[in-house]
């Protein structure tokens, strides 16, 4: 072969350039020279120039000025010029370029050239960059060539037809007859091209597929010939006769046998033969076996054959070659849905592959392991998966974490196991879990009330050891805030008791607040938790007060807002604090938008704790309108949450333990939406007997609406329980009693019970109310009635 000297000199010059800048200089000079040469008339070195340009193009430099030269070279009568011209066309022109249309005519002429090598250039170029119009134009030519007598041309025409069919689907019909007859060829190249063409036609059109089913016996015959035949030097690869052709035939058989009993039967024996006889020591044999397995699993094969196929995959799993293990798992993944039990048998090997060094193998093993988790093997599988999580590569962590959550959700053998698992994931890979994990976990925790103590202890311990995993820290803060009283009590059935003082807990929360590792959202959680503790602890309320007031001037606007509001809760609305910071209600599993760890980003916003969190953040700046939105906090428009007083009685929690009562101003809390000046409403004592005092205050809501708040207090030395109030009003007045804040009055006025009554007096009659009081004290029941004739109004 004669080297192209000018080309090689240029390449040498470019390669000897020491810097990028130098290289650019050389290339610019060369391009200028090439451009000049292009403009000249026909000279002997045209192909060299174009070749140079193509080299420059491969280095990444612009070369579009060579497009027209390609067109000219293709039209040249010299083979050497045509060769480079067509190469240039394939590299520089694609169907999007206008210049590509200009070569259509040349291609057409060259397709009928006397020299087969010129014809082949045209065919190759058409198959590489032929646009839809060119294909439509030249399709009849290709069909003619398919029937030519020259094998060399026939095989090229076949693949050119494949390209045409891909570009213009309707032309498939044109090639079907010729394709059929090509199957009778002996030349492997032509045969291969024919099989590819038929595959393409069948994939595109179901009717063509039906017609070609008749070729199954022929294909089986050809395949048998390849498998059984002796050594053929021309096509042999490591003992397999023409594996490329074998694989293509197997793929075509797969398409023809799919969903068709008759065709599947016809190929059954052949597939069994290939599966058992193919030598699997080299990659090439495994390639054929792999294709065979895929075919067996896709057609309607008999069960014996299916078992054979899955066993081959099982053998692949034990192969030393990583590639083989990888494709085995890919195939098993496809059938894990349909042949689940068969795949389960290989679970051990698959789980072992989790420990493989190779990232691709690990990924496949992870996907397959997650698919194999079931109720029976959940415990052992989870152990392996958690082990994997601690050492898995970063890009797989999110997938592993969410897969583990899903599996835990579906098959958790016990609540405690579930919570433990989630906590384990959060400690190992907390940074990679999805956002909705936090609300999901919180929801899970609130639902398992018997484990509150255990959970909060565990989370507290986790918080002490590591505050860098945001999701974990957020959940821990939330739990400590909610169940801090359980934490401080010390004993817990499920874990060893540990003495936690209030200072310890506040220290932990403050660490989170001050740490630079904490995300803004996390700090919000911590601040809210600190605030909630003010109603659950007894001694260090002042410390909490000071923390909260410090953050009133925090740079983070979100934190500042919260702190200011909590400050207000301490100062102006101290009476409301207990009610506001009460235990959260149990979040129902079927709340709108509840996600099971599946991601839908929109749903994240609707999960309850998140919404409550959002409601909290809706609290506006001015204290006056704070009232209205506290309504959202406790009442919320859409959720099943009841207004606060009812909540207090349904959740089995400790009663409101601290001092201040809601007083008459719960009225403002639950009442109208207009901002009302919050001076305390005048109260009147309407009943005082036997140590029980009932006071009443009222507020006008509208022209005919009035809200009355009744407050009861117990000044005796013994507790009162089952305290209830009933009210009656004149006929035209409408009465609506809201749920009371509680039904027990501790001794010595430790706490009060309030109840709101909404009255509507459209006829403006003289308002009277009769109230019946009943309660139990020291084991005996008491009942009394009092009439109220006048209501204090503003």
């Amino acid at each position: 072969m004669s080297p192209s000297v000018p080309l090689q000199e240029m390449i040498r010059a470019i390669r000897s350039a020491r810097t990028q800048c130098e290289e650019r200089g050389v290339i610019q000079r060369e391009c200028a020279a090439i451009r000049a040469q292009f403009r000249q008339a026909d000279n002997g070195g045209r192909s060299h120039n174009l070749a140079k340009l193509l080299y420059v193009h491969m280095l990444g430099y612009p070369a579009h000025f060579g497009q027209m030269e390609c067109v000219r070279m293709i039209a040249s009568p010299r083979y050497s010029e045509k060769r480079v011209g067509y190469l240039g066309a394939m590299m520089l022109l694609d169907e999007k370029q206008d210049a590509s249309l200009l070569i259509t005519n040349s291609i057409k002429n060259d397709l009928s050239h006397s020299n087969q090598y010129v014809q082949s250039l045209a065919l190759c170029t058409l198959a590489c960059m032929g646009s839809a119009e060119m294909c439509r134009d030249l399709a009849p030519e290709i069909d003619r060539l398919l029937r030519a007598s020259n094998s060399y041309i026939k095989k090229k025409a076949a693949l050119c037809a494949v390209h045409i069919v891909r570009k213009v689907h309707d032309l498939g019909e044109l090639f079907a007859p010729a394709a059929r007859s090509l199957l009778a060829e002996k030349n492997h190249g032509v045969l291969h091209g024919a099989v590819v063409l038929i595959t393409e036609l069948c994939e595109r059109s179901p009717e063509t597929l039906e017609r070609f089913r008749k070729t199954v016996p022929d294909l089986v015959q050809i395949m048998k010939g390849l498998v059984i035949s002796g050594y053929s030097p021309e096509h042999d690869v490591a003992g397999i006769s023409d594996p490329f052709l074998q694989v293509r035939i197997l793929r075509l058989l797969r398409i023809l046998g799919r969903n068709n009993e008759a065709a599947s039967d016809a190929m059954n024996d052949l597939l069994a033969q290939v599966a058992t006889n193919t030598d699997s020591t080299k990659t090439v044999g495994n390639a054929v076996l792999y294709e065979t397995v895929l075919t067996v699993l896709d057609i309607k094969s008999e069960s014996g054959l299916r078992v054979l196929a899955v066993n081959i995959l099982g053998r692949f799993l034990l192969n030393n070659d990583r590639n083989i293990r990888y494709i085995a798992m890919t195939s098993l993944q496809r059938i894990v849905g349909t042949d689940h039990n068969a795949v389960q048998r290989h679970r051990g090997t698959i789980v072992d592959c989790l420990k493989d060094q190779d990232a691709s193998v690990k990924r496949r093993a992870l996907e397959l392991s997650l698919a194999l988790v079931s109720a029976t093997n959940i415990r052992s599988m989870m152990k392996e998966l958690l082990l994997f999580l601690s050492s898995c590569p970063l890009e797989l962590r999110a997938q592993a974490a969410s897969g583990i959550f899903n599996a835990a959700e579906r098959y958790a053998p016990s609540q405690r196991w579930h919570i433990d698992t989630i906590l384990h994931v959060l400690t190992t890979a907390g940074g990679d879990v999805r956002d909705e994990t936090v609300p999901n976990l919180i929801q899970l925790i609130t639902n398992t009330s018997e484990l509150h103590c255990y959970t909060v202890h565990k989370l507290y311990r986790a918080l002490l050891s590591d505050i860098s995993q945001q999701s974990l820290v957020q959940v821990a803060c939330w739990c400590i805030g909610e169940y801090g009283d359980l934490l401080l009590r010390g004993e817990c059935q499920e874990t060893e008791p540990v003495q936690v003082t209030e200072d310890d807990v506040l220290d932990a929360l403050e660490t989170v607040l001050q740490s630079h590792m904490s995300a803004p959202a996390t700090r919000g959680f911590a601040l809210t938790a600190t605030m909630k503790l003010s109603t659950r602890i007894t001694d260090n309320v002042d410390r909490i007060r000071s923390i909260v007031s410090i953050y009133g001037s925090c740079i983070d606007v979100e934190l500042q807002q919260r702190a200011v509001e909590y400050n207000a809760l301490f100062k102006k609305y101290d009476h409301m604090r207990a009610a506001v910071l009460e235990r959260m209600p149990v979040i129902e599993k079927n709340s709108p938008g509840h996600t099971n760890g599946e991601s839908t980003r929109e749903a994240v916003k609707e999960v309850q704790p998140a919404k409550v969190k959002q409601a909290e953040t809706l609290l506006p700046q001015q204290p006056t309108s704070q009232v209205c939105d506290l309504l959202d906090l406790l009442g919320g428009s859409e959720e099943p949450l009841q207004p606060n007083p009812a909540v207090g009685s349904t959740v089995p929690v400790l009663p409101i333990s601290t001092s201040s009562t809601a007083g008459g101003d719960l009225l403002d809390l639950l009442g109208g939406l207009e901002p009302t000046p919050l001076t305390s409403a005048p109260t009147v004592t309407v009943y005082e007997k036997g140590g029980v005092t009932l006071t009443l205050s009222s507020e006008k809501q509208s022209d005919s609406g009035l809200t009355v708040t009744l407050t009861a207090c117990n000044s005796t030395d013994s507790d009162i329980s089952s305290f209830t109030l009933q009210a009656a009003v004149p006929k035209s007045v409408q009465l609506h009693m809201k749920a009371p804040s509680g039904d027990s009055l501790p001794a010595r006025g430790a706490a009060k019970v309030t109840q709101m009554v909404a009255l509507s007096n459209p006829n403006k009659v003289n308002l009277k109310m009769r109230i019946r009081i009943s309660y139990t004290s020291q084991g005996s029941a008491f009942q009394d009635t009092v009439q109220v004739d006048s209501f204090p109004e503003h």
Partner: protein
Amino acid sequence: MIRFLLLFSRQGKLRLQKWFTPLTDREKKKVIRDMTMLVLPRPPRSSNFVQWRDLKIVYKRYASLYFCAGLEQHDNELLALEVLHRYVELLDKYFGNVCELDIIFNFEKAYFILDEFLMGGEILETSKLAVGATMEEADTLQETMEEYMSKPAY
């Protein structure tokens, strides 16, 4: 079908690029960049298959060159390894103990050989002998014409 075939050196320099689907220059550059970044950092004994977007990438390193092919979902990866190997064998037969420099200085020949082996993303000829024979004949044709053209016209 094979969507593309790339040859690049250990430093990421492109030695050959064959595209079997129409892509813009920008898209091609992106794919090349992605492939080099995907393949070059992989440790020596990893598996030769990688999932990238919706394609299966099959790559093999021969001496200082990486051969990288992008396959569609239904293609057989193990066979693709054989295809890459066959191409290397063809180059080796043609150039005699082929090395990277051969492919650099005779890149157009590398393309011609590829065009006799693959077409439209599918295998064209499964016989090594047949490809070798065709290349010889085509080269002879080219030389004959060149000799003829360069002879002085007496």
